[in-house]
């Protein structure tokens, strides 16, 4: 499909080239340039989807070969992640993912495994994230037989060498020690807690105790549960023939006991508590995040909300928050908003920026003004066109690389996304009107009920720009938000996550 379109486009380009050779005038404005038409239809997942049979279970395999380089890339995707680990063993999921690669196999020592992969110049990796797990291999075609055999051994029979487990744990503790060094990492942990509640898997934090609770037997059990063919989707790109690859995979997976498909992640029960929260940290900039809950990925309003957010603060330099906070006022290097949607429960809406302590409140005021304006006045036709055109014109990029395309298909299959999402996407974007944007802004932006998190020097931040503002109308302090009420969140011990006493 793609190839044919590329040929027509190339022909059109040649004609355009011939035309431009005869008249070399430069149009006065870029809008006056005439472009050849670019016809693009999104690829259909069914054209790339195959199945192999493993003990009576059919495993989906997406394949998109290309022979540009003698490399093959094989990716195994499994459903499940940190939401499946018990509360007293937080860290088990990600440790399982790491240790599969680092701990050897039942018959190959960790050192031999590392040496083999490295000597063959293959990249092999395994991971368990918060909702997805996976294993991947990128290998030269010439030694795929050897690297793939080792890869399969790693995925099916990981050794979880005890010495490597101990090493991993001691390294993890070193990582924890750095938790309070960077204001951004404090902000991101506390924000997750405010948004999802400390008990939800999105916000849970590994401590020295939960780490030490994890045993080798736990890793084995967690691996056996997740990494099974009934919980697997495979994708392959690069230098191979599909029929040969299917046969290779079927052979390599044969005899692998099928287990259960993992359940969906649980929704949070925590309710967001609006208000101002701050954490003390001696840095010259306040790091600010504020927002509230958003919407689900498959919500019918997701596309108009994305367009609205693009205009508000998601579209970089063309968005309002960036324009005012950075370009007009020079208050921050970066400022913007996001709607991070979630598949299984509503996601989050947020605004972030970092500004010198004195201008944190003023920047907050400016961002709030923009949110309020979004809810009270229609966006301009020009803003709407920019946001819509961008979404439509950059659409082909979603499928530009074969790896990227297959990862969309795999993700869609795991989350039961309707395949028509992609074929109708551009029409849905085109249909978004100024009224739609106003409606969803009113429905999904709620500036009166935001949680505001600030990490920085509170005393300097609180008094705002009283001393430096050249224009008195710009004077803003933290007393201007939530009647000046603010809750101080304690810094937490990096190893135990228990509140630290104030200095």
């Amino acid at each position, binding site marked *: 499909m793609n190839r044919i*379109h590329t040929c027509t*486009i190339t022909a059109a*380009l*040649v004609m355009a*080239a011939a035309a*431009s050779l005869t008249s070399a005038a*430069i149009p*006065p404005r*870029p*809008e006056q*340039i005439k472009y050849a*038409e*670019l016809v*693009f239809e999104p690829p259909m997942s069914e054209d790339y989807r195959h199945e192999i049979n493993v003990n009576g279970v059919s495993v989906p395999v997406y394949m998109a070969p*290309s022979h*540009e*380089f003698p*490399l093959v890339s094989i990716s195994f995707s499994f459903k499940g992640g940190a939401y499946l680990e018990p509360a007293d063993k937080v860290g088990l999921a990600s440790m399982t993912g790491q240790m599969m690669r680092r701990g050897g196999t039942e018959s*190959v020592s960790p050192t031999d495994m*590392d*040496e*083999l992969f*490295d*000597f063959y*110049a293959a*990249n092999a990796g395994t991971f368990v994230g918060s909702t997805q797990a996976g294993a991947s291999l*990128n290998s*030269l075609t*010439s*030694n795929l037989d*050897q690297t793939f055999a080792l890869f399969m051994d790693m995925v099916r029979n990981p050794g979880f060498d005890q010495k490597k487990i101990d090493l991993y744990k001691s*390294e993890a503790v*070193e*990582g924890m020690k*750095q938790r*309070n*060094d*960077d*204001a951004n990492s404090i902000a991101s942990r506390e924000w997750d807690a405010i948004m999802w509640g400390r008990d939800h898997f999105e916000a849970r934090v590994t401590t020295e105790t939960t780490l030490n609770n994890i045993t080798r037997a736990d890793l084995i059990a967690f691996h056996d549960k997740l990494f099974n063919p009934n919980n697997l989707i495979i994708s392959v790109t690069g230098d191979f023939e599909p029929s040969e690859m299917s046969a290779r995979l079927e052979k390599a997976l044969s005899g692998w006991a099928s287990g259960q498909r993992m359940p969906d992640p649980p929704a949070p029960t925590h309710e967001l508590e609006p208000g101002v929260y701050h954490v003390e940290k001696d840095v*010259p900039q306040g790091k600010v995040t504020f927002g509230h809950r958003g919407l689900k990925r498959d919500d019918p309003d997701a596309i108009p909300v994305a367009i609205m957010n693009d205009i508000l603060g998601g579209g*970089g*330099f*063309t968005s309002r928050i*960036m324009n005012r906070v950075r370009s*007009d006022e*020079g208050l921050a*290097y970066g400022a913007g908003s996001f709607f991070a949607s979630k598949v299984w429960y509503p996601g989050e809406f947020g605004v972030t920026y*970092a500004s*010198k302590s004195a201008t944190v409140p003023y920047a907050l005021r400016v961002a709030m003004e923009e949110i309020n304006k979004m809810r009270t006045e229609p966006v301009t036709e020009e803003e709407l066109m*920019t946001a819509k*055109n*961008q979404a*439509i*014109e*950059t659409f082909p990029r979603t499928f*530009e*690389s074969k790896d990227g395309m297959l990862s969309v298909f795999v993700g869609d299959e795991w989350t039961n996304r309707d395949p028509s999402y992609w074929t109708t996407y551009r029409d849905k974007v085109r249909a978004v009107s100024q009224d739609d944007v106003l409606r969803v802004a009113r429905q999904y932006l709620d500036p009166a009920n935001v949680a505001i998190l600030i990490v920085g020097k509170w005393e300097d931040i609180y008094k705002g720009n009283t001393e*430096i503002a*050249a224009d008195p109308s710009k004077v803003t302090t933290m007393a201007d938000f939530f009647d000046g009420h603010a809750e101080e969140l304690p810094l937490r*011990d990096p190893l135990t996550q228990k509140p630290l006493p104030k200095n």
Partner: protein
Amino acid sequence: MRHRLLACIAIVAAAVSTARAQQVQPEIFTLDNGMKFLLYPRTEQPNIIAAGWVAKVGSANERPGITGISHFFEHMMFKGTNTIGTSDAARDAQFRSEQDRLRRELLTLQLTEQYKRYKDGEIQDPWDPAQDTEQMRAIRTQLDQSIQAERDVTVKNEFDRVYTSEGASGMNAFTNNDMTFYFINVPSNKLELWAWMESDRLYDSVFREFYAERDVVHEERRMRTESTPTGIFQEQFESMFWMSHPYNWPVIGWPSDLNSYTMEDAQNYFDTYYRPNNIVGVIVGDFDPAQAKSLINTYFGRLERGPEPPKVVTLEHKQQAEMRMNAECDCQPQVEVRYHTVPFGHADEAALTVMSELLNGRTGRLYKNLVEGKEIASSAFAQNNNMKYAGYFAFSAETKGDAAPIDLERAWYEELKKLQTELVSDRELQKVKNQSAADVYRSLQNNFFIMLQLGYYEAQGGWEYINNMPRAIQAVTADDVQRVANAYFSETNRAVATFNRKAGSTEDPDFAAMKAALPAEMAAMAPMIKQQIESQLASATLDELMQAQAETQAQMAQMPAEMKPVMEFALKKIAKRIAELKAAENN
């Protein structure tokens, strides 16, 4: 197992020979005005073109007083032209010249009155607006009003909006010591848009929002340098390491300079360095070279060739003695040991790269010996960095457990010694070469990344590096590695930065106190002592603890002086544990 290991060597050796043949051959197209283009069509990623241009100017071309102007200038390049970014070019120009006049008045007061007050000790920071004089405040208000008024004729971020609404993506730029690089992805039917927009800003650039943008760069500096755990110290170390070469000021500039440049400085800079004969364009992706050349002619052909920009004269002066910096920060204790080496394209670059790769990675020597083996590092790596005019090789590592930066430093010298005295094995060398060969393919799979590499190498000295370096790496011998390990890694050619965690952060203060109070020969035992005491305490009951406390106190008097710190440490730990258990009982 051993059999399989041996068998694979022959197979991979075969793979390497195909890798060696890999060539990237862009078409070279040079305009009469001297602007050079590298054109590299590629069909694997349809519908998209990665395009960019790189000006061969960076912070190394600056001088004291205007440090950071290259980077600041990069910000200015997105502010538009007389066509893009304004609804009334003539009025806009009036506002700009008015603001420039006010800003110069302010600058004069700043550099005379405020600098004098600062030198006299009257104020702490001559640039702090809170310290403004009456007169300055009045000018600043006028300036603010003018900036507000200019907004009526400013079309905000129009440069970005034009691109965005046509489906361009990933628009950005970066500045480093040697170059300033501007790049974007455009749909494959819109190469003309890129030619229009980029040639317009090179042909007709105006420095709009000059003063508000300075505040943005100050915020960028606060974010990147001042608010990160080690940013301000990295900046100081860099500045110390380069003794004479202009690499010794930060790319983002010193804050005083950032406050000081005027539009005239910016214009001079533009006229000197942003000439077509100092710029290279790169286009990679789904396009037709014939059409591209026609567009390039039409759009970039209008730029006027300038005189050759001045050369960077100052060489890095030979270091005469070891340099050392000891920092305290909210950071994992760490160390960097850095050596002056060679610039980009030097004959020893490949051997130094191989040396760094022997040290890096999961099967590299640093991981094996420092992270695993000795277990003193949580991470460790080597870096060979060859910039346009000079280069360096750095070892850096973060501590683990109770190890100190000095332990990491010593371990590095041991590793170095091995490289200097023992030849690396054939297998170890072959492993690095195999990886280099496979990574060449991996680095050529994405239009945007190919574009960046071609432009980057061309600005450093020549795009052909993309083919030559992989070949040079395959040719490196064990003797070469040993030779460079001896040639560049002397004590007098190194600079060492150690970072310790600031007191009062997460290191156990009781332990730090004990370690400091112990005689030097016993300090190394401190971690072991700590571990023993803690493991005993963890399993003790409240009664046992109380008893231990009493006994320890009783024995205190008879203990030799050098053991006192240990006893005191133990007593503190016992007291804490007792408190914990009591608290637990009360709950």
